């Protein structure tokens, strides 16, 4: 079997000492985590290792000895051999470097005294089992911070044994407490690991970490107040229809995730928290940009000034449309009486609507000014408010659509049931099927009469229905576009993409091996590098689950609903519990 030793790059130039690490069970490989330098007291080493073992749940042991030759210091060999008796091991590794050679020399002593060497057997005898040693160099800091994908939860019990590489990554990641003490510290033990290359932490980062816990607790308390307020609002039916309230509720849930004082346990939780936080910051930044653009040069009052004329214009266009329908639209001949009734009915509505708008017009500027300030809560808020304003301004179109659709729907139902009567059949509600039925003569007479009336009035109603449905669809499409962009801002995981671009080793798809130079007498040296995750996999893996609006029905179902005259609400919000 081949013995694999994972050796950190930072220890390549370390002074002589003991190798500390972990034997990976079942795979005949060892991970070297640090080097303890001379002088040391063996008792202290053992005590320290057992303390760390209880802290990290990693079985840390002394793996062997490391000797780096320096001028003037010879005679370490015999000292090194004696060490193997102090730290009893199944296998004792002896790694050493020679001046002038780049490769390491590796000797493995098994506890029965048999020496395994990696030397080319010149006589090629069968007594050697061909045991070979592979030395794999890895960048300790990168492996410690990186996460292998697909992510497997450590707490999750799975039947599959984690693979060797996954165990190596887990071991290095879990041994963080080992890396706190350094050879520059005044402790009983002097260690070399990745921290010896240079301290990384900065004061500001440390202060932020300390301050974040009380800030999180305060924000969680604020959030509970806001949540109680939202519960009160939810009693109102209208709050589930206004997209602003939906968006604010959604953000509140987000904040609960981000600002919970509990530290993120798993990688996925951490990524989700970070993604939400970064997307929230981006949202606020875009919102502030929008505010600075809107309030400069008093654009907001200009906008308010154009709002009332636009509403008036829409009302006028609708009026002209209705008058066109009341005449002979597209050359079709309408039923005069019904036409006039419907046309006048809708015209009166438009008249009411424009008078309401005119009533509101002095207050519009003030209201818009304050509503525009809400964009400081984020661009998504501003877009939701815009969507709500559009919905309110086109409320009359919605009303007309409902009236037209109901009329049309009633007509279609009437027609279909009278058609059944015409043929002598009836709809059996109990059996949910069409049954034959014998009608009386007067029932047949009235039924046929009504059927004829409804049939000839159908084109008029159908035309009104068609026109208002088209208008409604235009408004719905516009709202849908706004909702989609809100959704995009909500769910875009900028943090994951940024991490992939700036620190590609954090998200690892796998590893890459490179063969380092080969010198005779030394084992095989490999360089293990992290293979970062592909951008498309990042996008797929870290999608924030969103309350995205998506079409509730397929195209066929939508067309059927339109034909029958059922009211359509094409965008469905995922979390509507009341629906």
């Amino acid at each position: 079997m081949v013995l694999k030793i994972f050796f950190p790059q930072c220890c390549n130039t370390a002074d002589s000492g003991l190798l500390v690490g972990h034997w990976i069970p079942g795979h005949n490989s060892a991970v070297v985590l640090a080097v303890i330098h001379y002088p040391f007291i063996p008792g202290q080493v053992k005590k320290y290792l057992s303390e760390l073992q209880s802290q990290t749940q990693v079985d840390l042991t002394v793996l062997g000895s490391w000797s780096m030759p320096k001028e003037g210091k010879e005679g370490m060999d015999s000292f090194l051999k004696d060490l193997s008796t102090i730290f009893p091991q199944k296998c004792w590794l002896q790694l050493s470097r020679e001046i002038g050679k780049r490769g390491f020399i590796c000797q493995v002593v098994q506890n029965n005294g048999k020496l395994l060497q990696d030397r080319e057997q010149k006589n090629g005898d069968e007594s050697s089992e061909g045991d070979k040693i592979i030395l794999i160099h890895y960048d300790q800091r990168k492996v410690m911070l990186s996460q292998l994908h697909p992510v497997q939860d450590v707490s999750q019990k799975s039947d599959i044994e984690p693979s060797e590489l996954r165990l190596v990554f887990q071991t290095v990641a879990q041994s963080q407490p080992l890396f706190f003490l350094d050879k520059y510290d005044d402790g009983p033990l002097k260690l070399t690991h990745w921290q010896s290359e240079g301290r990384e932490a900065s004061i500001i980062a440390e202060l932020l970490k300390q301050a974040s816990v009380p800030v999180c607790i305060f924000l969680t308390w604020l959030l509970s107040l806001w949540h109680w307020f939202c519960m009160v609002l939810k009693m109102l039916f209208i709050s589930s229809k206004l997209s602003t309230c939906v968006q604010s509720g959604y953000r509140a849930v987000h904040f609960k995730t981000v600002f919970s004082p509990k530290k993120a346990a798993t990688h996925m939780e951490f990524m989700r928290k970070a993604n939400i936080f970064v997307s929230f910051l981006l949202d606020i930044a875009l919102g502030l940009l929008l505010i600075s653009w809107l309030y400069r040069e008093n654009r907001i009052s200009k906008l308010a000034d154009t709002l009332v004329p636009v509403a008036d214009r829409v009302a006028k266009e609708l009026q002209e449309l209705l008058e066109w329908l009341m005449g002979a639209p597209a050359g079709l001949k309408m039923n005069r009486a019904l036409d006039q009734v419907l046309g006048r009915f809708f015209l009166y509505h438009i008249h009411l609507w424009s008078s309401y708008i005119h009533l509101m017009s002095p207050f519009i500027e003030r209201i818009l000014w304050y509503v525009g300030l809400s964009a400081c809560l984020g661009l998504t808020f501003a877009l939701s408010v815009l969507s709500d304003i559009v919905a309110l301004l086109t409320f009359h179109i919605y009303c007309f659509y409902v009236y037209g659709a109901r009329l049309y729907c009633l007509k279609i139902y009437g027609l279909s049931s009278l058609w059944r009567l015409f043929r002598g059949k009836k709809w059996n509600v109990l059996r949910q099927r069409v049954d034959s039925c014998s009608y009386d003569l007067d029932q047949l007479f009235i039924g046929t009469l009504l059927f004829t009336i409804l049939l000839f009035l159908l084109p008029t109603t159908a035309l009104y229905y068609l026109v208002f449905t088209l208008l409604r669809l235009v408004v719905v499409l516009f709202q849908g576009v706004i909702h989609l962009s809100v959704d995009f801002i909500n769910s875009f995981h900028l943090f994951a993409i940024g991490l992939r671009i700036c620190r590609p080793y954090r998200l690892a798809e796998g590893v890459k091996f490179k063969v380092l130079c080969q010198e005779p007498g030394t084992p095989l040296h490999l360089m293990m590098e992290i293979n970062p995750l592909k951008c498309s996999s990042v996008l797929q893996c870290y999608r924030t689950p969103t309350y995205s609006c998506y079409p509730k029905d397929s195209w066929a179902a939508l067309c059927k609903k339109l034909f029958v005259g059922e009211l359509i609400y094409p965008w469905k919000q995922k979390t509507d519990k009341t629906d």
Partner: protein
Amino acid sequence: MAEEEFTDINGNSISLDCQTRSAFCREFTVTSPKLSLRKVMVYTCFVWLFAYAVFFFTEVDHETLLIIGSLGVQLSSSCASGRESTIFIEMNKLKDIVINEAVYMHGIIYYLCILIKDPADPETVTSVVPLFQSSKPRLNCLVQVYRSCQEILAQSR
């Protein structure tokens, strides 16, 4: 006679040359160049450079199979522009390396492939990864690689 600016009915420029041979003999020449050599050469150069750039960035230059006994197999392919893509398959996921025959159109081709298994279920082959897809070597080359890989795989089993 002097030359003036004339154009034909489509707007392309032509030139008129009048030559008086004698008092009662005149010669008129109308020149309409259809093809200019410079333009043709420039267009050809552009097309070739574009094709070269496309090949530079997309075509695979060389593919590597690195097999490390008891650790795994690494496949990498690199383009002329230096872009590399690498996959590492661990030994516990690798079932075997075999040469497969495939009927392709009117002929039979051989390709070397790696059989992948799920460590939990060692008997079934979950997927097949073909090797050397861009270079497509013939059987003699594949046999050499195959024999060599099998030696290493036999050692690590």
